[in-house]
């Protein structure tokens, strides 16, 4: 009952924020609104039992996306009028499409229906047998890393591709490396503020610790390589914001970041190739250990490390690249 109330309430919130976004023109307000939207969506995902997804949405929607958007928007983009209705042509088209789609939803199974076809076929085996076959309690991790491990390899490659893309797109810095005294336009208020520095610098080890916890606890609870990578990356970026990107680059240079990005994909891929050499199919972890579950455990541990490495390095690389574009 309480779930349903929360579900409906959050749906209303989502609709309100989405409508506000349709009518808003100011980029700053848009980014803030989309952050609120993400948090609402993430809470809704918890209500709908998708804790891993909610975790990711929180890290991505409210975290990375917002940071990236803030790196791109500028005060001079703010329009004179902050609010405008969409054109009537778009509204009409949207309404038309919406009514058509509404008719298409009528055969769908109801909310929470136990007999819905989606719960019958594949899901039965994942829920019923994954513990014997893989031996970890978080079924989402089992499916993600083993049954559909190849999709996850694809996912890591997508992140890597985005990292490569942003590297290619970063403007060539012809002025040479930035001087140590350069102000960080990314977050000017963070630098040289004793309060922030005192609190946040002490937070960084905790953030890193939390990241490692999420990395290695993903088998038993929500979390895993992706979320851990985002958290670790956030910890490193916080340091960059507090001192300066130049300082951070002296500790972790661009080259190492790029290397880590590529290495993560290679780790994942080579775990798969190891299966080939041991006489099994690509990404079959069962042959990696003495027993099937031991092999699956080892394989999942390794590939999650690869995911974490690629994601965290890509985060830092994104920060460097967007930083570069500001000079």
């Amino acid at each position, binding site marked *: 009952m309480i779930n349903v109330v929360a579900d409906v309430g959050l749906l209303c919130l989502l609709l309100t924020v989405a409508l506000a976004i349709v009518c808003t023109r100011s980029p700053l307000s848009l980014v803030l609104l989309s952050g609120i939207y993400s948090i609402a969506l993430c809470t809704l995902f918890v209500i709908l039992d998708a804790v891993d997804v909610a975790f990711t949405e929180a890290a991505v929607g409210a975290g990375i996306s917002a940071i990236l958007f803030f790196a791109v928007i500028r005060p001079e983009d*703010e329009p004179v009028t902050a609010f405008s209705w969409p054109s009537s042509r778009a509204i009409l088209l949207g309404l038309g499409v919406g009514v058509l789609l509404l008719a298409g939803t009528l055969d769908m199974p109801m909310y929470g229906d136990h007999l819905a076809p989606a719960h019958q076929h594949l899901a039965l085996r994942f829920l019923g047998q994954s513990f014997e076959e893989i031996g970890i309690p978080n079924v989402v991790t089992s499916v993600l890393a083993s049954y559909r491990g190849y999709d996850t390899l694809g996912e890591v490659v997508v992140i890597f591709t985005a990292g490569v893309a942003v590297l290619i797109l970063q403007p060539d810095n012809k002025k040479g490396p930035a001087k140590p005294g350069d102000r960080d336009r990314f977050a000017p208020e963070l630098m040289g503020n004793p309060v922030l520095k005192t*609190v*946040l610098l002490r937070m960084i080890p905790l953030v890193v610790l939390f990241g490692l916890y999420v990395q290695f606890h993903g088998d038993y609870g929500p979390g895993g390589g992706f979320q851990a990578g985002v958290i670790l990356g956030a910890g490193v970026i916080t340091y960059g914001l507090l001192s300066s990107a130049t300082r951070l680059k002296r500790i972790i240079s661009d080259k190492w970041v790029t290397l880590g990005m590529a290495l993560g994909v290679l780790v994942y891929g080579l775990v798969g190739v190891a299966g080939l050499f041991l006489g099994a199919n690509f990404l079959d972890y069962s042959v990696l250990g003495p027993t099937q579950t031991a092999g699956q455990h080892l394989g999942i541990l390794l590939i999650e490390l690869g995911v974490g490495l690629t994601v965290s390095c890509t985060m830092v690389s994104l920060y460097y690249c967007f930083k570069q574009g500001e000079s």
Partner: protein
Amino acid sequence: MTEILGSLLLLLGVLTVLVGGVGLFRFPDFFCRLHSASIVDTLGAGLVLLGMLVLSGSVVIAFKVAMIGALIFFLSPMTAHALARAALRSGMHRDKPGSGPSTGGMK
């Protein structure tokens, strides 16, 4: 007993947040609003977390809730500080409501 105590704390926390939300709308200028938002945020979230702490059955969950509480205790005032400082730096003053740079949808 613990159940009643926990529920009371949760309720109190929610009410506090609600009051803060009203303050956010009713106060005249940026700094008053910030005041309402930040103090209430810390107290309200703290009360809710305390309620959850009381209600949580296991030590592990209680520990995690306590960690979240500690995090909010440190970070929430800090955020308010950063916001206030940013506002002050960009030329917003208490005696001139609504002054300062254009902030999009904000008045």
